[in-house]
């Protein structure tokens, strides 16, 4: 009488094949993580990925590799890896990553048993962790989310096949008669929704536990615990280094990627057109601007997580806190806005704060995103100068002969902001233009700036491609003397020379201008294309005010996402980027303070939820009471009609709802290849039959429950499930009896 349920089961060979495929997928996911790490292994990753894809798509070729090849693989690998380490000295990360890739490649195309499978998981895990620590990107979150179920599935399969291997079994030819369609069809047949449900539950459990551990664990930085992971693998963008030549900033403008995200506290008034200052270059040298040695030497160095600018006014702190998420590989100079009061990093950092130029830079260029908070006050367009800057008052321009061969003579800051290229041609040209601008009248710095800007914009138009005329004089002077179009660097550079020639100390600043305001998560998104150069002019009263001589036809102002007035960005790209900021805010930047904040929020949310629920229930009950009371109002006929309608509705619900649900379940089942019985009674009988079969009749005691009773109920259940309706016994009675028997049996 037993009618055992036989679900499709995969054979040992098929399990091994599935294991192989899962291992391949796991490896591909792990390789994917490496694409975001700049370790110069792109080619190797590509080759390995291709080999693994081939080993998955046409796995039989892996069996055709002669054993002799495998014998030579280990010594060959040893030689290659050792050589790579030696040649890559002193770098550790790139050869380490390449070593893992090579090992993974071998493990992925060689036949694997339990030991090799576990090795593969370990190698893949190592790859993912290294990539995660090096990038900390949102992609890492997605990758680990995909990696976890794959690794769990592979471990599950390893456990399943372990018994076979323990019994000495080994698939003689794993891929002899392999065909994808048959394999997929077998997988489809063997799928078990209960197993999926358990796996999903297990995965959800792992995620919940992981999240809890993440939230509760003490915060520490893995890259600081393991120093070698803290290696820079990238170089700064030339436009944001301490020396820029014409064209460097324009190169960055071509880059669409996001360079900077900025969160503002609520009390910060959102500026419409922020200028994100990064590098202030005071010295002009042969067509290039640079931070002078004297300005550099005055920087204050510190190595801690919090830095308070000495003697900074208290009111700046009240102005608000700006949190910067600065992408890696851009510059060691950190963007900031306005006058700084304090700097706070997530962990200890080696930082230099330049009081003269009001700039901040780290000791090295971070290869991954850097988080820092600044207390800053954004003034309209000016910054208070340092005490040294007061020496500039009343000083004349310094014409200095510049020569590449002899070098530029040393001039200390702040006098570097008065230097113009010497030589009669240069002086003559610059003086001529200044005269044209001022009309030989004494002007204030602001007035001169306005006129000079107007002069430049009138004479030159904006263009990313520009040509500097040839000649013996200074290149900027040559451009000034021509009517060639130019970009922000040329406009700013030319303005600097004009300002200085007119006697106004001027310096050039590079950074970003504008940015888009993300409408989903409310933060600034500044892209590399927002890179910009502008000037700061000393006003003679102790302040440096900003002058942006570049005409409005600036790429930063033309694309609608940035520019003079920041736009609210609600595009899909902004939405995707908002996920990234969530990742930064909630995951990567999660610290003790946020831990406390989250706990508080959770408490508030739970209390609020209970209150809302209670209020909702009360309101529902009150509404129901009012509605029932309203039924009794009016005439008797109306009441009877209402009752009739109510009963009718109830009847429809009772009569049709179960059928509708049953139909839905049946159709859903069919979509997934499961044939459910269409009848609810048959379904119920089927479910009870399953429980009967899993409860062994041999366990039935001879005492209170005679086996005949079990047999009878079992047969009745079979009749309800598979028999014709005419033969059906009373379903409710049978179900009642069956449940009773099962209950007794289990007790």
């Amino acid at each position, binding site marked *: 009488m037993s009618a055992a349920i036989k679900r499709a089961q995969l054979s040992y060979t098929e399990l091994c094949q599935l294991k192989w495929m899962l291992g391949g997928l796991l490896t591909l996911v792990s390789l994917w993580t490496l694409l975001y790490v700049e370790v110069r292994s792109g080619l190797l990753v590509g080759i390995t990925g291709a080999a693994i894809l081939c080993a998955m798509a046409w796995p039989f070729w892996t069996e055709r590799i002669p054993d002799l090849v495998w014998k030579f693989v280990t010594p060959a690998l040893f030689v290659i890896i050792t050589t790579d380490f030696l040649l890559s000295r002193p770098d550790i990360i790139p050869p380490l990553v390449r070593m893992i890739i090579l090992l993974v490649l071998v493990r992925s195309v060689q036949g694997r048993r339990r030991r090799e499978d576990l090795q593969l998981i370990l190698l893949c895990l190592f790859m993912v962790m290294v990539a995660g620590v090096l990038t900390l990107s949102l992609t890492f979150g997605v990758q680990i989310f995909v990696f976890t179920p794959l690794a769990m599935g592979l471990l599950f399969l390893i456990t399943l096949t372990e018994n076979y291997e323990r019994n000495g079994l080994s698939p003689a030819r794993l891929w002899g008669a392999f065909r994808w369609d048959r394999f997929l069809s077998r997988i489809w047949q063997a799928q078990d929704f209960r197993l999926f449900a358990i796996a999903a539950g297990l995965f959800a459990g792992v995620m919940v536990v992981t999240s809890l551990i993440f939230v509760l664990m003490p915060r520490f930085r893995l890259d600081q615990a393991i120093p070698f992971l803290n290696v820079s693998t990238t170089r700064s963008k030339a436009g944001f280094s301490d020396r820029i030549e014409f064209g460097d900033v324009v190169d960055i403008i071509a880059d669409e990627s996001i360079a900077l995200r900025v969160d503002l506290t609520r009390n910060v008034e959102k500026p419409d057109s922020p200028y994100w200052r990064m590098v202030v270059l005071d010295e002009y040298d042969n067509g290039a601007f640079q931070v002078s040695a004297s300005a550099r030497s005055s920087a204050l160095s510190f190595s801690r997580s919090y830095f308070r600018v000495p003697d900074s006014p208290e009111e700046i702190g009240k102005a608000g806190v700006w949190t910067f998420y600065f992408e890696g590989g851009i510059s060691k100079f950190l963007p900031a806005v306005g006058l700084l009061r304090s700097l706070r990093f997530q962990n200890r950092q080696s930082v230099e704060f330049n009081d003269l130029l009001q700039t901040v830079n780290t000791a090295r260029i971070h290869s991954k995103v850097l988080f820092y908070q600044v207390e800053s006050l954004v003034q309209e367009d000016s910054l208070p100068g340092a005490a040294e800057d007061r020496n500039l008052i009343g000083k004349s321009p310094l014409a200095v002969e510049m020569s590449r061969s002899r070098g530029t003579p040393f001039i200390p800051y702040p006098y570097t902001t008065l230097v113009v290229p010497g030589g009669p041609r240069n002086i003559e040209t610059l003086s001529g233009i200044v005269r044209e601008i001022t009309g030989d009248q004494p002007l204030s710095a602001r007035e001169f700036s306005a006129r000079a800007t107007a002069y430049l914009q009138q004479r030159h138009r904006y263009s990313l491609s520009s040509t500097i005329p040839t000649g013996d004089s200074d290149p900027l002077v040559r451009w000034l003397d021509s009517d060639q179009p130019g970009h922000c660097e040329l406009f700013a550079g030319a303005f600097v020379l004009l300002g200085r020639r007119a006697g106004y100390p001027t310096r050039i600043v590079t950074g970003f201008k504008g940015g888009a305001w993300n409408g989903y998560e409310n933060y600034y998104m500044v892209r590399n294309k927002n890179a910009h150069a502008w000037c700061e002019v000393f006003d003679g009263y102790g302040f440096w005010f900003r002058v942006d001589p570049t005409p409005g036809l600036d790429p930063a102002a033309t694309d609608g996402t940035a520019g003079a007035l920041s736009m609210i960005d609600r595009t899909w790209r902004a939405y995707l980027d908002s996920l990234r900021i969530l990742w930064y805010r909630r995951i990567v930047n999660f610290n003790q303070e946020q831990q406390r904040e989250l706990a508080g929020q959770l408490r508030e949310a739970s209390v609020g939820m209970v209150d809302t629920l209670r209020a909702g229930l009360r309101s529902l009950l009150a509404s129901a009471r009012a509605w029932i009371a309203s039924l009794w109002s009016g005439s008797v006929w109306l009441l009877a009609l209402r009752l009739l309608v109510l009963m009718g509705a109830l009847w429809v619900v009772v009569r049709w709802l179960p059928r509708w649900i049953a139909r839905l379940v049946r159709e859903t089942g069919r979509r997934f290849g499961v044939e459910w019985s269409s009848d609810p009674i048959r379904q119920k009988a089927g479910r009870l039959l*399953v429980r009967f079969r899993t409860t062994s009749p041999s366990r039935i005691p001879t005492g209170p429950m005679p086996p005949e009773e079990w047999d009878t109920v079992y047969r009745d259940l079979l009749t309800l499930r598979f*028999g014709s309706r005419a033969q059906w016994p009373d379903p409710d009675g049978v179900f009642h009896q069956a449940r009773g028997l099962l209950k007794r049996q289990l007790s």
Partner: protein
Amino acid sequence: MNDTTHAVQASTIKQTLDQLKANIGKVIKGKDEVIDQVVICLIASGHLLIEDLPGLGKTTMAYCLARSIECTFSRIQFTSDLLPSDVIGVSIYDESVKEFVFKRGPIFANILLADEINRTTPKTQSALLEVMDRSKVSVDGQTHTVAAPFMVFATQNPADYEGTFPLPESQLDRFLMRIQMGYPAYEKELEILNNGLLRYDSIQPNPVVTRADIQDIQRLVPLIYVEESVLHYILKLVTATRMESEFRAGVSTRGSLSLKLAAQAAALADGRSFVIPDDVGNVVLPVFTHRLSLHRQTSDTLEERRIVQSLLQRIIDAVPTPV
């Protein structure tokens, strides 16, 4: 008759068939499973192909069955020179009545043992197989109906294929089942040695079921209820054989109908008036094995049968059973 009547009859039929099995089991020792399959085949009005070595009780089985159900039994030893008329019968001129009279051949029996069917020519084989299919014989423009119930036990020796004419697949399809007898267990063989007789015709089992009863049961089998999900199950099994690349061709529609019929007979033999998935699972191997052949030809027939069976078993394991 309605479904409720079937349910009542089914339990009675089970008792009757149990008696029949027990009666055969007195002679054929330790072969309960084979006896079950023979009875299922009988009540499903099917024909049986037994493929096994000589001397394992094939003839005795057929003879016992015939005796137990009050039926006539005849045996034809197929040889290469056997003619269709030797099987069917022949019209001969009767001097007394001055006309041709049809002399019935051995096929006009209820239970016919076609011993070593593959030893005869395809012409004679097809003559027999035509009768199996239509239960009628046409000779000289006259149609003669064979006895009812009519069941053919055809045998083949799998170990000796020298000088044989293997049955083509289209003709194998006419057999409802193919089974193997197999050697009896040690204890059972000892029992046979103690009590058994060498010649089958010296065994005289008592009839326990009448011929009419068997005919009634046979009429009832197609009426056994098959629920929709079980029909889907049958179809999925059949479809799976068609998708299996190792097979030259999948099971035909006649094969799926045969499986349904055999499952109905199995359900009835178990005293049920409806089919459960286990009924299907229990008969699928004997019903399908001879209907399938491999792409790669093997010289060893037994080896081919074994591979086919293992592939079929894989399909049975793979197809989800309705719950």
